[in-house]
Every structure is written in C-alpha cells, then in structure tokens.
C-alpha cells in the first residue's frame, strides 16, 4: 500500500443527543494509524474509546470531521459500502465475544467467509487454519455454550482473522478473561500481527493489554491526551 496510514482521523467529533442537548463523546480527534501497528486506545470508562472504534469500524458515523479507513471516508459510506468495508477489510473482537449461539465454532468462524462468497473447500481450509492459529481446532464442532470464556474469545479472534483483514478492531478483548487467558489471547494476537502484518486497534483499560501494545493513545473525556510509541 502506498499510503502507510491505514486509518487517518481528522478533527473527528461525535455528539450524542441527550434530550434537547448534545453530549460530546469525541472532540477534535486527530489520529493516524499505520499498516501493521499494534495500537491501543487507552482510557477510563466513558472516555470515548468504543465510540472511536465504532466509527473506525464503520459501525457509526461521526458528527464532524473525517475518519478515513483504507482510503474510504466512513462519513460518506452508505449502508452497503460500510458493510462491504467491514466485510472485506475489518475484523471485530468484542468484550463479550458475541458469537452466534446457534452455530458451531466452525460455523461461527466460517460466517465472514460465507459473506465473502468463498467456495466450500476454501472456506474449510481457511477456517481450520484460523482455528489452528488460535489453538482450538479440536472444538470445531462445539457450540459457544460449551466453551469457556477463554475458548470463546479465541473463537472470536479466529472469526476476526479468518478472512485475513487489514484491520482488527478489538474492544476490551480481555475484560471478561482471567490473567492466563488474557495473556494467551494477547500473545496469539501479537503473533498474528507479526506474521500477517494485520493492524490491530484496541480499546482497553486493562494493564495486561497495555503491556503488549506498540503504541498507546490515551483518551480522556473524548480527547486524545497522550500518544506514545512503546518500545
């Protein structure tokens, strides 16, 4: 890619209506994220981390400013284009795993590939590879209700990674995990970042996650108060 900025945010504002007034969740955010970065948005609850991630993930629209992701301005995307961007280029990992309960582990991971209309054989290969990445291939036929929290989050990581997205957005991925599982998941993500050069963007206030980040952007009251590269 010619442009190293996979995510470029300029003067981003997000307001939420509160009765007759507005609550400003994000205020004049300027941020650039390069391809392959392992970057975390850090801050206390209510600081605007999830809001920022939702806009970058084309799940929400900014009130003002621009969020350009993969050279596409989120503000100008219609429903279909936003879905296409998410489908082709972005993987999501949520705090509560958000696996589809009626599907097996295999089917959950396969789902993004079905949307990409991959053929059956290719889907099978990609899903099994993703499950092996996260070390859970033996649970392919299990249902989410049969998995532990750590295993569920691994499935969520596999689902996010199976289509080899350019960006993975992880919103508090370790919030529901114990220390061992948290480290395990983070190591897996770090390995994927190294091997596949996938850009990871975290929202977290978990110290364990912060320890793995290459870059830490600190958000407070909807404003960036610090942006530091961590060696």
């Amino acid at each position, binding site marked *: 890619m010619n442009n190293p900025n996979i995510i470029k945010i300029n003067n981003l504002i997000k307001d939420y209506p509160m009765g007759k007034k507005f609550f400003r969740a994000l205020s004049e955010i300027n941020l650039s994220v390069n391809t392959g970065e392992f970057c975390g948005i850090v801050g206390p609850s209510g600081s605007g981390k999830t809001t920022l991630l*939702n806009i970058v*993930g084309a*799940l*929400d629209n900014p009130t003002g400013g621009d969020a350009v992701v993969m050279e596409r301005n989120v503000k100008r995307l219609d*429903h*279909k284009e936003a*879905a*296409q961007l*998410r*489908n*082709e280029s972005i993987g*999501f990992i*949520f705090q509560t795993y*958000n696996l*589809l*309960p*009626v*599907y097996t582990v295999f*089917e959950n991971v396969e*789902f*993004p590939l*079905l*949307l*990409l*209309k991959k053929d059956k054989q290719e889907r099978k290969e990609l899903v099994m590879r993703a499950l092996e990445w996260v070390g859970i291939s033996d649970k392919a036929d299990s249902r989410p209700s049969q998995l532990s929290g750590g295993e569920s989050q691994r499935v969520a990581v596999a*689902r996010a990674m199976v289509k080899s997205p350019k960006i993975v957005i992880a919103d508090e991925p370790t919030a529901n995990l114990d220390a061992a599982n948290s480290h395990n998941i983070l190591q897996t993500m770090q390995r994927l970042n190294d091997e596949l050069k996938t850009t990871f963007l975290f929202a977290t206030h978990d110290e364990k996650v912060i320890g793995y980040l290459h870059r830490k952007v600190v958000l407070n009251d909807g404003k960036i108060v610090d942006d530091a590269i961590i060696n």
Partner: protein
Amino acid sequence: MFLLKLAFKNITHSGLRAWLNIIALSFAFVAIVLTEGLYDGLSEQVRDAEIDSNVGGGQFWQKNFDPYDPFSYEKSHAVIPADLKKDIDNGNATPLLIVSGAIFPEHHIQSVRLNGIDPDQNVINLPASILKESGNINSIPGFIGSRMSKSTGLKAGDYVSARWRNNKGTFDAGDIRINKVIDIVAPLNDRNQIWIPIEKLRDMMQTPDEATLIILKKNARKIYTNSTDWVFKGQDFLLKDLNENIERKRIYSTFFYIVLTGIALLAVFDAQVLSIFKRKKEIGILIALGMTNWNVNFLFIIEGCMIGLFSLFAGVLYGLPLLYYLAKEGIVLPLMVQQSQFAIGLTLYPKYGFNLFIMTGVILFISVIIVSFLPTRRITKLSPTDALRGK
C-alpha cells in the same frame, strides 16, 4: 442461498419459539380448511338432500300454486294432463296434492298442510310406502316428520282428528292415524305437514286424478306438457331461496376464516417482534460481520416465510389424514343442528376441494410474509452500535 441456509439454521436451532409458531400456524391452516370444508360439505349436502327429498329434477306446478300462500292451495289443483300422466305411470314423476287443513292434537287446533303422495312412488326420497299400512278401517293412514311430532306431541300409533274443506267448499273431517314418525331430511317436508295417500286425499277433496304439483325424478329426461294449466319450475328456481340462505350463512364461515387467520398471523407478528427484540445483539453482530441492514432484514423475512412453509407442511402432514378421516366418516351432528331449518342428514361430511387447500395455503403464506415483513422494517433503521449493545 446463503441466507436460506442461515434462516433454516436459525429456525431449527431456535428451540420452542419457532416450533410453537409453526404448530399454531399449522393448526390455523387445518382449522380453516376444516371449517371451510364443513361449510362446503354442509351446503352440498343440504342441496343434495333438498333435491333428493323435495325438488327432484324440477316440478310442474299448477299455475295457481304458491307455496308461500296457503290460501292459494284451494284453487291450485287440476287434472294431470295426459302427457305428464304417461311419465307418472312409468315412474319418471310423481304427483302431489296439497290441501290446507287443520288438526286437533291435545285439545288445540293447528293449521297443517295435508300432502297427498303416491305410496308406491320412488321419485323423491320419502318412505311413502308407510302409508300402505292401515289401522282402523275408517281412519286415514298418515306419517309425519320428527319436527312435526315434536311440535304437536303426536307419536306413532296416535290418532288425530283433521278437518279440511273439499272441492265443493264443504268442511269435512276424519281421523288420521300416524303410522310412523320419520326423520325427514328436508324441513320443508316436515313442519306443519301430514303425509297421506294421494288417492285418499283426492277422495276427501272430491278431486279425482288431480294434483297440485308433479315432481320429476332427479335425473329423468326432460318432460314437456302442452297444458297451459301447468308451469315448469326448474331446480335453479326451486333452490333459489336455499342457495341465497346458504350464501347468507357463509358470512359465519368467512368470519371464522378471518378470525383463525388473524389469530395465526397475530402469533407470527408477535413472535417476529419478540424475536427481533430478543435478537438485537445478534443483528448487531451480523451487521458488524459485514451484512447490510437489508441483508439482515431479508434474513428475518426468509425465516418468516420458512415458518409459513413449515407450518403448511406440518398442516398437510397431520391435517391430511385427519381431514380425510372426517370426510370419510363424517361428523355426527347434534340434535339441535339436525332440527335446523336446513335439510341436513344425521352426519355431516366435510368436502374439501383442491382449490380450498391451495387458496388457504397461498393466503396464509402471503399473509405470513407480510406479517413477517412489517416488524422487520425496524431492522433497516437500527443503528449497528445500538443493536450490539442490545438497545
């Protein structure tokens, strides 16, 4: 194809909720077909019974005869023309002489219609041969229907005094012996009527060879007469009132149709609304994974359609044997219905046409699609972030 598979999986894995919907809808389907089948069966049975026991293949009426005006009976009899007599003799028609009279059961007076019928006739479904039995040599053999028996208190073997006015205008009287009380299918042949032998009635009236009307055999060839005293009334004319009555009563079956369909659709609508409410987070996940709102909307519509299809399939699966059994064995009617104004037999046989199945299926299916679509419209307006939060 992908959405179809997805919808199928969602339904098959969604537990009791979807299956309850399917059962409720299939029950509505079977109930609607049964209700309509009962009504169609009833209508056909009533028409057939009316033709078999009353209307026949049409009737020749003496030109003055008006069935709704008992005062017309006095002048509405004439000698049977030779061309019609020929058909009566070879069993293609039977004459009926109708006279107004009165009986005196249990010390009160009651107006009746005395029907003179040939005890050997086989034209209409009425066991006139009962009239061959005679009790007291001076009495007039007669029979009545169960409705008449109930209203007068007359039973088999009873004698009842009857009074009539003969052709000369003279009042005359005699005793009628009720040989038998029978179940007369057509109420028009029952209420306020006593059946006696036509020759006897002719003697009583001093009207030899005369009749009021001549009933033709159901499937007899067309019969003509040159006499201007007799007017032919076809089945269409004779069944006109009945057909109108049946059509008026169809409003009840239509009402049931609408109520049953409405209940079923309400269940689907309710389940869809609940489903969308309950699956908001899932909707958010699907959108986050790359589905458009419209894709998700379409997925829910497909699920609704599948529920409709599964319901029809389930309805056919358990409904067909049940409906077939009822059509074959019939439904025994309660006494109240048997004694209604319609000519209904003791057993009602539902009748289901192929069109009834198809039309009911199509109407239910289309309604389910519409009802599934209505609540899903809100998905298209749903914010993915709100959905993910389950808001």
